[in-house]
């Protein structure tokens, strides 16, 4: 039995953050009903440029929406709103990511939904919260990264802002929402009380940076300083970072300097670094260590240093990771002729939940859901 067997999620959200939260609940056992607009559905079906499409929809749509049921409703029509109300009345969890205020105008805001289904657990994701000057701004990943200060943490000092090259705000906010919804479901089962769970891309990004922000707010606002080269953490001492070698790159985590120089066995380096401070002198330390690493291959350094207990890794590509990672990697991958998939990032009672083969076609489940929830089949406009 999966933990959320029997839990029904009605998901009005699109793009990534909300649907990612729903995907996590799905992997935990919930049934997810995706409500889409009749005019082409979730924008994500068409959005991305990746050459691969599966049954007409983007690969990304399938990655995010595998295993869900799809229904199209025109939420501006009376029929569509009535059908949505029937769905909400039969739901345990509702998710929405409309801009602040929109869902209320559609008659499906938290209060209205709670009246339809007392004890409902209701989740809202916004870009920047529901009030204030930024509430109406588009809740888009890159723009939230730009506003959050996060772009000054990666890359080297001369590089200008460096975004995280994956949708980190969407995924972090979706994860936060999933956590709040689950906690609220737990309380609902104990006390019968519903909940409105809210988060935003910006709150999730602040949370992702919480370690650094806490430091910064307490140190007279001295910002983290990126290194000239191989930077990986603005507040950590040398030798932390990435090094260029004769072939490939080597990442080196926290390592006391005497331990490193001992492991490298180079008396000249030991002498050069003697008395240096890991933070104050980190550029000089880095240059000296870099000169040593440049004399060999990353794979050889990794083998030699790892055997001596030094925390290091050769920097891999995805091909390398799949070839070398063993079950830690392949356990999450489901190759397939139609669509290769990525499974859930956790195991429950020793088992990783098996991912569905694909996402739903637009309105694939409309007629079935109309019959099940008792609304007009005409509302589910295919």
């Amino acid at each position, binding site marked *: 039995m999966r933990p959320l067997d029997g839990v029904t999620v009605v998901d009005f959200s699109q793009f*990534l953050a909300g649907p990612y939260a729903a995907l996590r609940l799905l992997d*935990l056992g919930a049934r997810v009903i995706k409500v889409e607009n009749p005019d082409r559905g979730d924008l994500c079906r068409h*959005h991305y*440029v990746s*050459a*691969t499409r599966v049954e007409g929809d983007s*690969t*990304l749509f399938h990655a995010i929406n595998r295993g869900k049921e799809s229904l199209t409703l025109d939420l501006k029509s009376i029929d569509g709103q009535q059908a949505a109300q029937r769905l909400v009345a039969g739901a345990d969890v509702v998710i929405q990511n409309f801009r602040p205020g929109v869902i209320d105008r559609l008659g499906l805001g938290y209060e209205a939904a709670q009246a339809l289904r007392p004890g409902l657990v209701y989740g809202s994701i916004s870009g920047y919260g529901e009030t204030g000057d930024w509430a109406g701004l588009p809740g*888009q*990943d*890159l*723009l939230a*990264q*730009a*506003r959050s*200060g996060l772009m000054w*943490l*990666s*890359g080297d000092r001369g590089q200008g*802002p*460096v975004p*995280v*090259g*994956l949708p980190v705000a969407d995924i972090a906010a979706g*994860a*936060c*929402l*999933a*956590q709040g919804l689950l906690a609220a479901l*737990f*309380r609902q089962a104990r*006390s019968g009380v519903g*909940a409105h*769970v809210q988060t935003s891309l*910006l709150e999730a990004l602040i*949370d992702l940076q919480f370690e650094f922000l*806490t*430091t910064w707010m307490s140190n007279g*606002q001295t*910002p983290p300083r990126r290194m000239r080269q191989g930077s*990986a953490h603005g507040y*950590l001492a040398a030798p932390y970072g990435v090094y260029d070698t004769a072939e490939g*790159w080597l*990442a080196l985590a926290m390592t006391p300097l005497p331990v490193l120089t001992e492991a490298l066995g180079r008396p000249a380096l030991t002498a050069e670094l003697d008395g240096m401070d890991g*933070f104050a002198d980190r550029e000089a330390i880095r240059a000296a260590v870099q000169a040593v690493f440049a004399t060999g291959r990353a794979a050889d350094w990794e083998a030699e240093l790892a055997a001596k207990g030094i*925390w*290091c*890794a*050769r*920097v*891999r590509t*995805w091909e390398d990771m799949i070839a070398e*990672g*063993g079950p*830690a990697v392949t*356990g999450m991958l489901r190759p397939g002729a139609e669509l*290769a998939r990525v499974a859930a990032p*956790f195991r*429950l*009672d020793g088992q990783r939940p098996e991912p569905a083969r694909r996402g739903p076609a637009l309105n694939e489940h409309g007629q079935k859901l109309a019959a099940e929830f008792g609304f007009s089949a005409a509302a589910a406009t295919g």
Partner: protein
Amino acid sequence: MTDLPLSGLRVLDFAQFLAGPVAALRLADLGAEVIKIERPQGGDLCRSMVVNDQRLDGDSLVFHTFNRGKKSVTADLKRPEDLADVRRLIETADVMIHNFRPGVMERIGLGYDAVKALNPRLVYGAVSGYGAEGPWKDKPGQDLLVQALSGIAWLNGNDGDGPVPTGFAMLDVATAGQLVQGILACLVRRGVSGRGGLVEVDLMSAAIDMTFEQFTCFLNDDSGQPRRHAQGNANPYQPAPYGVYRTADGHMALAMAPLARLAELLACPEIAAFGQAQAFARLNEIKSVVAGVLATQPTKHWLDILEPAGLWCAPVLDWPAFAATPGFAALDPVQVIRTEGGADAKTTRCPIRIDGRMLRNPVAAPALGADTDAVFGSLVAAARA
């Protein structure tokens, strides 16, 4: 006001460093009582991991960031007397979390099967670097190293750069989130079935999950590792103009935008001439033209043109600028924590709001072993009663 969702639950946090303790922190913010079980000599290694030379009441500020609002008891798990106390404590708990290397808890006698026999309702969370098997299982489960191994370092930065890691512990925080989700789902199930469960997460799986969108593209086409944009890269799989640009006085980010509309607003027909169909194939040429235009005027000039027209763009802010914005103020994301000794520090709050309530807890992290006598004493008292 209703109770916090997890009020009345007891969580035992055997973990150190980041991922495990941060998962327990989230459970604490959601209302649970969290008791850290630490070794008597020095406790959680994070207490002495001083970053940027900052301490609060003797412990590193980072330790307080991850462990605020928790209790601390000390126990030497190699001593039979201490282990017996810990077993009694486990009998009273709802959740336990650890991040020992695979096999260590089993040798101590606190593996999942042994603990399940003690307390069948317990939800058991285990964090590792790379799962319990495979060639990497004994590698250190450290954020930067997992970034290096998982290909993530090739998504940041520009084509021609070496690997660019994400400059903060992104994977630790993501792993903590996965663990919280699994634990909470098992607690929901416990309400139905009466039995606990085992939740296992690892940093490598969290890394793959964070990239799952892009990684699914990679798995389904034959072009291999995606190529980063030549300049202003923000996601190798996004077409032009997606990315970051220099302006006359700073930087701005531009998300998805139709090229024809962008050309019109920037008064640059050259951009439209590429045609929307070329937005991916010729992205570097297109971005180069866009960059040339944007560099000629200050950020505000462009935002005033693009934002009212509905184009998705934003100034790139650093922390001093971000913290001074009304957007930051509206979220009210800062809270002050205070140690038993009266020392204060600012930190951020839980990013989840429940029923409009921001989850705050002004209590700093505990001194090592601060609650040992009270916690174990209450077990003895309960046993006598």
